[in-house]
């Protein structure tokens, strides 16, 4: 069973993702963020039990440990997956959110004309469970239940997103080492001659790739917001390469959806609402 921890002198993150071989009548108990998960195998049947808390109950460390067979009654949700032939290996993989994530800085900030900055915004990940060869997908569970929110120009048009709060940290060393949130570096450039006030930023999570670095922290590609002179709109662009803050980045998952250029143009028009 894999549960790697690299010693580099900097605080490292326990990785919960990977391949797990589960013998009969043994459960795998995971605590990832505020998700409590228990997976066990009974012959050709898989039993998944889980509970998700709110943002407040998320711990900073995540781990998956083997345990004796669990009683699923201890959890709020249970599901059984039936197969014809027994499958022995469980694959856990992190995924980004299935809707854009609207991050509200705990303290709104302003970018004066001509300034530019980089802030780090994190969003919770989803846990994807798959078993066997060929891989059969069991379920996708969020590490915490995020609140719904509406992001759009009016109550008539827009899209449903998730809402979260961010500390909008500007320095790498300030970032807490958490294995259940993916960090997105957001570079913001204000080329206009009026200050840019940011009290809401929408991350296009379904369109980003997920990486992990040598420490085990989760990263997405960097995104850039450029507000040009004389315009209220800003250009959003997504970098194609892993962020440079992530050393030794390894790709974990592809974007859920691929978007044409037009959807990004639309995305940031509302970004500064």
């Amino acid at each position, binding site marked *: 069973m894999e549960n790697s921890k690299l010693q580099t002198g900097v605080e490292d993150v326990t990785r919960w993702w990977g391949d797990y071989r589960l013998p009969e009548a043994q459960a795998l108990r995971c605590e990832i963020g505020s998700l409590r998960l228990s997976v066990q195998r009974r012959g050709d049947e898989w039993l998944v039990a889980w509970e998700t808390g*709110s943002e407040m109950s998320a711990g900073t460390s995540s781990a998956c440990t083997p345990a004796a067979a669990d009683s699923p009654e201890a959890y709020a949700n249970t599901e059984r997956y039936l197969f014809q032939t027994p499958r022995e290996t469980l694959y856990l993989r992190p995924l980004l959110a299935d809707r854009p994530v*609207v991050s*509200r800085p705990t303290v709104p900030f302003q970018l004066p004309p001509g300034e530019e900055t980089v802030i780090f915004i994190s969003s919770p990940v989803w846990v994807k469970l798959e078993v066997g060869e060929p891989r059969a997908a069991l379920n996708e569970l969020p590490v915490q*239940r*995020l*609140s*719904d*929110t*509406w*992001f759009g120009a009016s*109550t*008539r048009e*827009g899209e*449903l997103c998730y*809402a979260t709060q961010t500390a909008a940290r500007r320095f790498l060393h300030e970032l807490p080492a958490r294995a259940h949130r993916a960090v997105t570096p957001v570079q913001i450039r204000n080329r206009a001659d009026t200050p840019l006030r940011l009290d*809401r930023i929408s991350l296009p999570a379904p369109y980003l790739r997920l990486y992990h670095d040598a420490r085990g922290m989760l990263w997405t590609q960097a995104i850039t917001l450029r507000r040009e002179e004389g315009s209220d709109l800003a250009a959003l662009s997504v970098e194609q390469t892993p962020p440079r803050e992530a050393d030794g980045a390894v790709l974990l998952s592809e974007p859920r959806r691929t978007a044409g250029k037009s959807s990004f143009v639309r995305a940031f028009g509302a970004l500064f609402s």
Partner: protein
Amino acid sequence: MLESLGGEFTLQVLRAVVIAIAGLVLAKLASAGLTRLAGKRATAHQLMLVHRGSFYSILALFLVSALHQLGFNLGVLLGAAGILTVAIGFASQTSASNLISGLFLLAEKPFGIGDTIRVGTTTGEVLSVDLLSVKLRTFDNLYVRIPNESLIKAEMTNLTKFPIRRLDIPLGVAYGSDMEHVHATLVKTAESNPLCLEEPQPLFIFLGFGDSSINIQFSVWAQRETFLTLRNSILQEIKIAFEREGIDIPFPQRTLGLLGGEALPVRIQDATARQE
């Protein structure tokens, strides 16, 4: 010459008779053929209409040409047909109005199939938009037919046009309550409910000073599909939060005042004495 005249007349009559008989035969054949063609796809009612309609129209055509052969002036017939049209026009006013209303509704598209609309007191899901009427299925599974005319004339509400919807919760809190505390409790309850949208933000409106309580309105937004679930969950959560925070929702209150300034004698009975 009389003979030739008589001969010509006989010829005309013969021709007319032949045309009439031919018409009869053709009408019979045509109506039978059409009925057989439409046999599988039409109901009994429609089949009868097809049969009779085709028979009489073809017969009429041949009879008219037979009469024309005999030398009758068809202008009279046309005049009669004109008057008949006017009479039919007056009779079918409503149907024509429904038909034209239907066309306007199609062009305007205030709702489509699958939308939920409310017309007067009827709320239901639109099953079909037909020529003369719109068919609804109410939520207790009843079938309602609404003429297009009444949709054009009266107000209609489309409940599923926009993706999000606001829920207005009227509340009354006791007069002694701290309004800041009430506001904070309501906002915290809305935030902890994941179905309640964070944007647009929940609305707190101080409606006024009521008879028994201070009236407020708390409005939250939800996605259209989860509206009902939110309504049930948030009302329960508000009740629990109010009980926990000690915020009172009062019953209707009346204050008694005694005239004359006399005191009302009250006797307090001991609980143990009552048991005896």
